[in-house]
């Protein structure tokens, strides 16, 4: 006997950056403003009990709980029908790019997505927030009930476990964030630190923006073209340093980002020595993004000067990426254990109606037999009544116990499932 012969099916259908090019992904993408409406439309498809849509720039996934009869007999699956009706995309266009996971594999996939193991940049933190947004939208329209509620809550817990128990998201993999990370290895907090931008490149601006977001207090800008320097200074609410006074003022900065197009080096080793002397040996961090380089690499030998050029930053980013790969293995192990636990919980939940029915039946028999016996027993004192009550309850519970255990086991055992 299988207690959950009418149990719903969990199905995940989607496309992502691995299976579909951007041209396909952008046709399928659902803007956050339309997400709730789309989820409602999906949940109203025949045979769908619960629904959630995750739509990011790298993936669109439809997670549904469907009637088992519906999934086995339908000519066209409800989810594909939704894509055709709501987004007006012919199924034939999508078929080569679509993946579909059911039951255990669907749970596993969701846990991997939430934990950022399926992301383009493994370990990136945004995906968890996007899954949470999708969940909020689905709840808002009443598309989430028992199964998805439990599954999503578990997915959030798994993602948190992966983040805290592995180092998957701890290292930076972009040039700008590597620069920030390095600065924090030197200065700890960037609160109150001064950043000097020498030259005006896009990447140096990005690095400066990152540093400001992390708490850097002020920006100094030096550029050969004064108007451009003023423009950048205004953008960052900073201060302009005339280029011809650069060497007098540079020691004010804790972090120097250089990106000029100068063919010669701007900062030599002796400049580093002078700056450090004037700063009473407080460290300086030079981020040299320019090609050809602006800072003489030998300045790195000066105690207290740290010089990183674009290749150095790229090397650190690649090493961090490789580290994330190693951490991903540990994270996969966590996900597998959590999938096992969740599936077991889900399966034993199928036995609940049968257990309840058995318990109610036994209780009815107990009460009726007790009523019959009451006539023969005559008048009992309250203590005696309580003792008889306790005795019958205990007998019923003990007689039921082996059957309840067997029921739970049979539901948890995959061999007993269809």
């Amino acid at each position, binding site marked *: 006997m299988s207690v959950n012969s009418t149990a719903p099916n969990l199905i995940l259908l989607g496309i992502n950056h691995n299976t579909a090019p951007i041209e396909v992904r952008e046709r399928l993408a659902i803007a956050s403003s339309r997400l709730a409406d789309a989820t409602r439309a999906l949940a109203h498809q025949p045979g769908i009990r619960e629904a959630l849509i995750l739509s990011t720039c790298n993936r669109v996934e439809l997670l549904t709980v469907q009637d088992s009869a519906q999934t086995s007999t339908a000519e066209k699956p409800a989810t594909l029908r939704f894509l055709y009706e709501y987004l007006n995309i012919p199924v034939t266009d999508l078929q080569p790019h679509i993946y579909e996971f059911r039951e255990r594999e669907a749970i596993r996939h969701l846990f991997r997505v939430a934990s950022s193991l399926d992301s383009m940049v493994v370990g990136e933190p945004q995906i968890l927030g996007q899954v949470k947004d999708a969940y909020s939208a689905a709840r808002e329209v009443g598309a989430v009930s028992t199964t998805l509620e439990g599954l999503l809550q578990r997915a959030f817990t798994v993602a948190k476990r992966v983040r*805290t*128990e592995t*180092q998957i998201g*701890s*290292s930076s993999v972009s040039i700008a964030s590597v620069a920030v*990370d*390095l600065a*924090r*290895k*030197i*200065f*700890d*907090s960037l609160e109150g630190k001064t950043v000097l931008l020498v030259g005006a490149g896009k990447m140096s601006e990005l690095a400066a923006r990152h540093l400001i977001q992390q708490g850097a207090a002020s920006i100094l800008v030096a550029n050969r073209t004064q108007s451009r320097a003023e423009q950048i200074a205004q953008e960052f609410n900073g201060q302009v340093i005339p280029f011809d006074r650069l060497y007098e003022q540079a020691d004010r900065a804790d972090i120097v980002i250089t990106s000029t197009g100068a063919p010669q080096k701007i900062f030599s080793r002796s400049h580093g020595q002078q700056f450090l002397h004037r*700063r*009473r*040996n*407080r*460290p300086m961090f030079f981020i040299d993004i320019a090609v050809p380089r602006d800072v003489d690499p030998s300045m*790195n*030998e000066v*105690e*207290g000067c*740290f010089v*990183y050029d674009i290749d*150095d930053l790229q*090397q*650190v980013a690649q*090493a*961090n990426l490789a*580290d994330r790969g190693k951490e991903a293995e540990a994270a996969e192990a966590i996900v597998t254990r959590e999938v096992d636990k969740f599936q077991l919980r889900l399966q034993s939940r199928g036995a609940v109606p049968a257990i309840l029915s058995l318990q109610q039946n036994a209780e009815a028999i107990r009460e009726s037999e007790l009523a019959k016996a009451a006539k023969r027993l005559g008048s009992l004192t309250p203590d005696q009544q309580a003792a008889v009550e306790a005795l019958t309850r205990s007998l019923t519970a003990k007689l039921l116990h082996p059957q309840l255990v067997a029921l739970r086991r049979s539901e948890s055992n995959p061999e007993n499932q269809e």
Partner: protein
Amino acid sequence: MSLLWLRVAVLLYGIASLAVLPAALYNRPRWRHIAIPATTSAIFFHFVSLIEMLNAAHHRLPVDAHETQSFLGLFLALAFLFIAGRYKTVSLGIFVLPICFLLGLIAAFRPGEEATTFPHLHTGWIFLHVALLLAAYAALFLSLLASLLYLLQEHRLKKKSPAITWLPPLETTDQIALKTLLFGLPCMTAGLLIGSVIAQQTIGPSYFLDPKVLLSFAMWLAYIGMIFIRRHSGLRGRRAVYLSSFVFLVVLAVWAANQLSVVHRFTAP
């Protein structure tokens, strides 16, 4: 009973020493949540055992080497806890906690049996003298350790291989090195002053000819000199480590000079 509490403390130091490894090396917060409470509990039991031990021996301060080492271990553990709270780094625990464990272990399983006849051991002033100087030693040791970690982190950053994450940022280690030194200075000054006044009253001027006393004042001068140089030239990195190491050697010499000192022989023959 005091040995029992000390052994409990040693066990907890041991647990903290192991837990701090994944907490610091792999940045595992769960292990940090074991290392810090274990250290806190160890300090509590260590303190209880020390009080009981001193009461049982009818004196108010550590007399023999084992008691003194145990006392020093307690200071180091307290300092580690303070640094972990203030600077949010447990990296120093990789080195400090095993030292606390070893210092406690020796006292827990080879307790000193020396008795004392020195009358001033029952005064609070001599307790302050010893406690302040041990606090200064602990501060100096932590300053040296922080300077070494600074050097190591600087080396990694210069070699462009900063992937190693357990080392605290340069600014943090620099702050720890300087702040511990600044904390140690008043401790050492007050400790030496109190000791000098007591010795002047009990022994007289001959006290100032004792080798340990002479070395102690040399240590104080070296300490002052180090702080002066560090503060005025912003000395960091390799040269700061050299300077700290030199002063630390002087401290070790002062410690070893107990063997030559007449003034610091409190134990009964």
